[in-house]
């Protein structure tokens, strides 16, 4: 589940660089991405997510879930494969940094289908053994894990 760190660091910096350039092109100063700590997206330490106070509630709850010991934010919120993983990190990192800077996003936060699919696959990745039979036949149409387990990462309800 965990990758070779040197490799990761390398990809991290290239993407940080890429993202920063994107920033300039978009006419927004790289300062935004840096200061808003969009770089956090490129790390796997959940504490990094917490750099944005609006992620704090999720962090605080996650700490108390059964998954705390099992899965980090990125285990559920980014794909397993490297390229996919860092592309998603760059995309979310960028979008969310911009959103954060402009303050232009709906609250309470609600996961979008793009990220919801990533999470669904993450569930399957870790749990395909226990859920193997649930897929039996049935047009290969996977059952929606979040229909019953949307709370596992961090309960939504108070």
């Amino acid at each position: 589940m965990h990758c070779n760190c040197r490799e990761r660091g390398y990809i991290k910096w290239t993407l940080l660089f890429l993202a920063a350039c994107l920033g300039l092109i978009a006419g927004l100063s790289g300062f935004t991405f840096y200061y808003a700590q969009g770089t956090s997206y490129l790390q796997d330490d959940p504490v990094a997510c917490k750099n944005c106070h609006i992620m704090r509630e999720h962090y605080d709850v996650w700490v108390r879930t059964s998954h705390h010991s099992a899965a980090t934010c990125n285990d559920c919120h980014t794909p397993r494969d490297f390229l996919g993983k860092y592309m998603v990190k760059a995309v979310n990192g960028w979008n969310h940094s911009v959103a954060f800077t402009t303050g232009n996003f709906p609250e309470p936060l609600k996961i979008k289908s793009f990220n919801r699919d990533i999470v669904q696959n993450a569930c399957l990745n870790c749990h395909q053994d226990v859920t193997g039979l649930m897929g039996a036949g049935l047009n290969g149409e996977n059952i929606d894990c979040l229909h019953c387990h949307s709370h596992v990462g961090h309960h939504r309800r108070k």
Partner: protein
Amino acid sequence: NIQDRKEEAFQYPLNVVEVGEGEIDPEVWGRNFPMEYDLFVKTELDYGETEYGGSTPYSKLEKVPAMKRIWNGYSFAVDHNEERGHYYAAIDQANTQRTKIVDQPGACANCHAAEVPALIEKMGWADFNRTPYNELKPSLMTGSSCADCHDPETMDLRITRPAFKNAMAARGIDLEQATRQEMRTYVCAQCHVEYYFKGEDKLLTFPWTKGLSIDNIDEYYEEIDFADWTHKETGAPMLKMQHPEFEMWSSSIHARSGVACADCHMPFIRQGSVKVSDHWIRSPLTHVNESCQTCHQWDEKELEERVLEIQHKTAALLRSSEEAIVDAIDTIAEARSAGISDDDLAGAMKLQRRASLRWDFVSSENSTGFHSPQEAARILGDSMNLARQAQIAALLAER
């Protein structure tokens, strides 16, 4: 990668036998899927009574004597029990007085035996429905089978009963497009629905073209001027409602939220290293943790109490509306014996019918209101209002 794993998963169930299209013996399917089979056969067990449900087939007529008055003149007033597990589907139908004192059509068998799809294939839809039940009876051996809900080839859920296909088609719903989650309800809706036998051929039909609410269903039967029986004391043309679980559920918050019958009645349970659907289909009150807790983070006791509070309120309304309907019957009967004509009592009788079918819709729906709490209470409110108006109409007719 997930694709591979799914193949794996598909291999996992021991493919010890080839299950053919015509196979209905659960034991044979069970060789490939022992976990589901072992749970499935438990529907033969009596796990006892819950507050309002459970698997002990006590007489409902004794528990709620008012039913004998409300259904007076109909076979339900003679024999009607609390229902139990799928294992008994064919047995209980064969043994009820309702198939003995009445010559029932084959249509009855649609939801009570796994042999049905093959019989329909052989005889044709009209022929099957119209043939006397007693003629078909010898060939109705298997109350419930995997084949009722599964395609032996792929194990996909499938619809095997024509009446549901026809009813959905009539509503413009294409079952081919149904999602997996919808199928987790539709397989049940083949049978857990209100129905009637249409025309000379006794074609099994669901009264849904105007919608699924009781008001739509009332309207539907009015339009085709249908009656199940004539009330023995008042002479009113009556309608009987039967197990409208699917219709009631459709009006619920759970339905709006995409929660399927199988989510609560066949929750996933851990068996060794895998999750399987609990094929011991029964009252969720016997296992609220598996049935409810993944979605509702309340403890077992609290979840049970939530169900019971809803059911107690529904039950109290049921009792009040039974009183109201019986009062209406008494008053109309009195007026009759006082020599008031059928014409002068027509209004009162129509009101009795409308009150009675609404009460019946909630009473014969097997969740005692849980499947849609506000809707069940709303319907019983209308029922009481109509029953008392029937009484008033009869009193005024007497002046």
